[in-house]
């Protein structure tokens, strides 16, 4: 020790009811060269407790036999008065067992009266103070880490090289139950069987290399619940530098995963709505374009009428002028008349189409439109040997269409079928809903036009079949004829497509598909 440097004064509370021994100790301590002691004396437990309350001491020298208390209780009660102050027990040679008991209960040391010198006393006091300080620091540090590990939501675990659990923080309670029952159990047991081999491999790698890894996996709990966890392992090395334990810090990311999933779904929904909106916008643009075309068509039809009028009147005049004349001229005039009649029919169609715009688009039931259209052509159908087969499925999602225009389409189609089947046959009309798939056996039900894969569609299928007794009468090649362009436009406007297929020698199959807006899906 360097005699030039005096340590700070050590405040000692001496509890001793024998004045002679107290005096002796005072004398001994006063002459100590290493430390400077400031001594205060107390003669009873009550006096001791009062002084401990009123002042701060670095150490207590405590005789266990006092007038108001004796034995181990003297220690216990003195210690309770100031738990942070180290206590050195003073005892007679016959009482060493008691002194040892006090040490076990937290006293720093003991001295047997009459068996120590000044140097020993000084050393015991200083060591007691140091030990207590170190113990306090350790206790504080432990308390600090205990507080952290008890309050973090992260899952902290320590496992040995075999994968057995050594420690699990209280936060494990929500996943694995009471953490105090976990030590010694297999830390891989609750890991989802699909993830377990991978996590075990990472564990072995960490043991082998000493380098931890971050990974995600699932816990499958006893109640069947699955929790997603993200873990980071770190190796703790032994004195030889070999990884001995693994500390695993994990986070329950189940909610986070669910949120990400929900976000992904929401994003997909937004994307789908956006596509729907775009499709609607396209329809709108098309409808505006169509209206411009209508206006134009009306103008053209009107303008064409006058020259057509001249030709009609001219043909009429020539027909009368040539009466009784050239037969060839008669035929030519008849052809011209026919041609003019056809041109006139086209103009008529154009004007009708022009007049059909714009109309309100409303929610409508396809079955109702089909049934009403069939009703309209009923009398016409009755005049021919045609059998009508209907299979209109109930519960079809509603369509957003121009009802009048769509009825026009069906009436036109049915009238055409009646003409085609005039010699006898079966007209089959079916409606149903379905989702478009790429692999659909029926070519007509494959996505095309504005229809995409996976779209929910409402389908109307019109099938014409000649009866066996009236075969051969070929279907009119221009059956739907000039009107088809107009029909196609109306169907497109309703978000649909039309498919016409000829079954040679049997008749035609006409399929109409209408896209159902996604929000109308059940």
């Amino acid at each position, binding site marked *: 020790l360097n005699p030039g440097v005096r340590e700070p004064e050590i405040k000692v509370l001496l509890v001793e009811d024998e004045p002679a021994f107290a005096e002796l100790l005072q004398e001994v301590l006063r002459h100590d060269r290493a430390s400077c002691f400031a001594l205060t004396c107390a003669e009873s437990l009550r006096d001791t407790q009062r002084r401990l309350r009123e002042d701060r001491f670095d150490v207590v020298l405590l005789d266990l036999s006092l007038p108001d208390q004796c034995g181990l209780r003297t220690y216990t009660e003195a210690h309770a008065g100031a738990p942070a102050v180290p206590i050195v027990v003073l005892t007679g040679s016959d009482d060493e067992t008691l002194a040892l008991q006090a040490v076990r209960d937290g006293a720093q040391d003991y001295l047997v009266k009459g068996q120590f010198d000044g140097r020993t006393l000084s050393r015991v006091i200083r060591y007691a103070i140091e030990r207590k300080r170190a113990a306090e620091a350790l206790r504080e540090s432990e308390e600090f880490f205990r507080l952290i590990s008890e309050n973090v939501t992260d899952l902290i675990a320590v496992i040995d090289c075999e994968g057995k659990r050594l420690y699990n923080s209280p936060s494990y309670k929500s996943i694995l139950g009471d953490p105090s029952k976990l030590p010694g159990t297999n830390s891989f047991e609750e890991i989802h069987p699909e993830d377990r081999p991978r996590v075990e491999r990472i564990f072995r790698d960490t043991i082998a290399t000493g380098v931890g890894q971050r990974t995600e996996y699932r816990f499958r709990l006893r109640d069947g619940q699955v929790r997603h966890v993200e873990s980071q392992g770190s190796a703790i090395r032994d004195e030889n530098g070999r990884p001995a334990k693994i500390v695993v810090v994990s986070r329950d990311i189940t909610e986070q995963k669910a949120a990400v999933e929900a976000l992904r779904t929401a994003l997909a929904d937004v994307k789908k709505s956006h596509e729907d909106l775009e499709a609607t916008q396209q329809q709108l643009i098309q409808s505006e374009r169509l209206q411009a075309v209508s206006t134009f068509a*009306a103008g053209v039809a*009107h303008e064409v*009428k*006058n020259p*057509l*009028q*001249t030709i*009609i*009147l*001219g043909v*009429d*005049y020539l027909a*009368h*002028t040539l009466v009784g004349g050239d037969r060839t001229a008669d035929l030519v005039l008849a052809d011209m008349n026919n041609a*003019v009649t056809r041109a*006139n029919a086209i103009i*008529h169609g154009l*004007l009708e189409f*022009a*007049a059909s715009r714009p109309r309100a688009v409303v929610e409508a039931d396809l079955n109702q439109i089909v049934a009403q259209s069939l009703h309209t052509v009923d009398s016409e159908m009755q005049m021919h040997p045609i059998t009508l087969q209907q299979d209109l499925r109930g519960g079809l999602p509603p369509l957003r269409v121009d009802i009048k225009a769509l009825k026009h389409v069906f009436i036109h189609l049915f009238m055409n079928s009646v003409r085609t089947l005039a010699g006898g046959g079966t007209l089959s009309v079916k409606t149903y809903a379905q989702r478009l798939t790429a692999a659909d056996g029926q070519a007509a039900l494959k996505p095309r036009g504005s229809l995409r894969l996976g779209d929910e569609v409402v389908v109307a299928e019109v099938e014409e079949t000649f009866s066996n007794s009236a075969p051969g009468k070929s279907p009119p090649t221009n059956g739907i004829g000039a009107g088809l362009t107009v029909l196609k436009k109306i169907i497109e406007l309703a978000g649909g497509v039309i498919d016409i297929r000829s079954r040679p020698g049997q008749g035609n199959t006409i399929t109409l598909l209408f896209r159902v807006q996604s929000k109308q899906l059940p």
Partner: protein
Amino acid sequence: MNKKRILIIDDESSITRLLKLNLEKTGRYEAREVNTSSQALPAAREFRPSLVLLDIMMPDMDGGDVAAQIQSEPGLKSTPIIFLTATVKPEELERRGEIIGGFTYIAKPLNVKGVLSVIEKTIGA
């Protein structure tokens, strides 16, 4: 027998010419053609038609106005007028209802047989 006089008013001269030829060819009618609405009233005053065939849409004047002019003339007040219309759209006819109201109209394109039958129905053969 006196031929009935038909005044044909239409801005298309080819149409008026052919209508005139066809009507006169029957031997029962004498026709006069007018191709602008401004000539309509003077022609009517002078020609004193038994019936007027009047195009409802002409570039310089509406057929309805021409009809009103003709019928406001004391001597022409009871002259029947048949409108020729190129518009077959029902709403168009409805819109023009106040002009056409009470009058017969023939939709273009018309053929001679149709025109003759309407004329005969109106003023007799």
